[in-house]
């Protein structure tokens, strides 16, 4: 919807300004080609109002303009041509209107007066068209900046929501119950191992609960969390689960969103290793690739595994979070083969605060 027509107050004000220009124009005509003032007004007022409407149409092309400065010379040329065309159409309309007024309202000298003032009409037409374009351009700029602001706010809200969800996902109750079952088993057969398991669980929950509130953490903290989590799951799965870390020393101080790896590692265990009778190895790699921090989680999987419930929630969550936080500066690629599954995260390589 056109911003002028959207609100009646604006339209009335706009037409008021147009009428004012009409009066001015009539006075100019009176100065160049003297005659009756009523005749000049009868000629100029309606023409100014009509031109006001004509100039409103420039909104639609202006709105389509790209926001960058690229192609500015072409735009100026285009604007000039458009203003000439617009002024020519208007002048032609003025010619017809003057003839009509002469025939019906008795202003018989109007066609002659109009012929004298014709260059004036053309120049004013060009000037008003350019003015209208600038005003509309201003409108578009304001609207775009408001839009950008709103989108920024929306993105922030999404990021917060995703963070909340990730916090919930990370407190997977089944992980807790299964771990407690392992502790219960170890208390009978291997008390020192049971005690070690308690330390690991305390470490994992203390860390993950604390990290949820932060905006970013060092990769080293995320890796510590992954190691602890996998150590707990190794107790549960026994020889079926092995974990291997290839973390480049230099990447440990890079910033990552908290718990960005955790859902992916849970997936690797639950949808990968847990479906394999013989188990397998989860590998976690971190490296610097150009301007990016590359994180790769890979696991083997069973080609005949049933379509798993709940798969993809963790992945979708991570995707939403990094998109909200980094936009196009981050990427997530998934390579799902029959017998292996690989997730690759590319984040901007930034030092942790």
């Amino acid at each position: 919807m056109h911003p002028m027509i959207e609100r009646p107050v604006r339209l009335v004000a706009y037409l008021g300004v147009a009428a004012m220009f009409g009066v001015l124009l009539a006075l100019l005509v009176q100065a160049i080609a003297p005659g009756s003032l009523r005749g000049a007004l009868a000629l100029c007022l309606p023409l100014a109002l009509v031109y006001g409407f004509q100039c409103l149409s420039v909104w639609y092309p202006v709105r389509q303009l790209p926001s960058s400065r690229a192609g500015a010379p072409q735009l100026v040329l285009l604007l000039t041509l458009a203003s000439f065309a617009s002024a020519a159409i208007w002048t032609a309309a003025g010619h017809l209107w003057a003839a009509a007024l002469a025939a019906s309202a008795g202003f018989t000298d109007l066609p002659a007066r109009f012929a004298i003032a014709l260059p004036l009409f053309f120049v004013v037409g060009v000037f008003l068209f350019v003015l209208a374009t600038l005003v509309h351009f201003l409108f578009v700029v304001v609207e775009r900046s408001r839009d950008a602001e709103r989108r920024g706010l929306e993105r922030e809200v999404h990021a917060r929501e995703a963070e909340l969800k990730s916090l919930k996902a990370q407190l997977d109750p089944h992980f807790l119950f299964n771990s407690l079952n392992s502790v219960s088993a170890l208390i009978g057969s291997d008390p020192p191992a049971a005690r070690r398991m308690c330390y690991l669980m305390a470490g994992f929950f203390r860390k993950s609960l604390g990290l949820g509130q932060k905006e970013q953490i060092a990769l080293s903290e995320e890796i510590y969390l992954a190691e602890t989590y996998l150590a707990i799951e190794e107790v549960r799965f026994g020889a079926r689960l092995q974990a291997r870390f290839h973390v480049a020393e230099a990447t440990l101080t890079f910033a990552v969103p908290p718990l960005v790896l955790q859902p992916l590692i849970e997936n690797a265990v639950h949808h990968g290793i847990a479906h394999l009778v013989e188990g397998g190895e989860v590998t976690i790699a971190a490296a610097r690739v150009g301007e990016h921090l590359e994180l790769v989680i890979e696991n083997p999987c069973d080609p005949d595994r049933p379509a798993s419930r709940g798969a993809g929630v963790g992945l979708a969550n991570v995707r939403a979070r990094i998109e909200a936080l980094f936009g196009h500066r981050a990427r997530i690629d998934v390579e799902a083969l029959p017998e292996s599954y690989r997730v690759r995260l590319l984040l901007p390589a930034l030092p942790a605060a």
Partner: protein
Amino acid sequence: MKPMRVLIVDDEDLARAVLRELLAAHPEVEIVGEAANGFAAVKLAEELAPDLLFLDIQMPKLSGFEVMELLGEKVAVIFVTAYDEFALKAFDVHAVDYLLKPVEPARLGEAIERAAARLAQDQARPSGVAIRPSAVAVAAAAQPPGRPIERVLIREEGRVHVLPLGKIDFIEAKDDYLSFAVAGKRLLKQQTMGELEAQLDGSRFVRVHRSYLLNIERLARLELYAKDSWIAILADGTRIPVSRTGHARLKELLG
């Protein structure tokens, strides 16, 4: 009284260990075996014929519900899992009980009492009249709700075949059995055509004849054989009879 013979099925060593330890306090129970996955569970259950299964649900290859489907009416089941969301399904398939991990000794005791009562009840009944669920109920419980099945489980000569639907060419009814045609071979399963048809995705498998369900992807062409009777010719050249209703169903599906 003879002790109850039980089989423990769980993919985690520690989960089996804790059950073993807790069951040691129950002289009325004798552990006859342990299995770490669904295939092993089915095999052992056939060999050992236990009275009762302690069955985990989330396991590699076959889920606990799928194990139950394969074993049919032979054995009473107590599910043991960290997930509480399968409890309703477990009731649907008449599981004796549903224990949550970590298992509490007192709760385990109750479950064993229930199992003993159920077994006594079964023995008092004339043989052949079981209160066990039908294969359909168990197969349905093994699937996510509202979704057609994605694979068919067949037990034959001690082996378990997991057939993804895409590998099945067609299914033929033979007396009480269904014969699954898979790459030129046949596998038999005791089930009725109606039961299976209800479980399958109707846009992939079409009942082309009273005795035939056809994987629509295998159909190469149709030939008119006689009035109101056609022959479906499959990609590998196999010929299958198509009835008038079957033909109508095919036409509706293929347009």
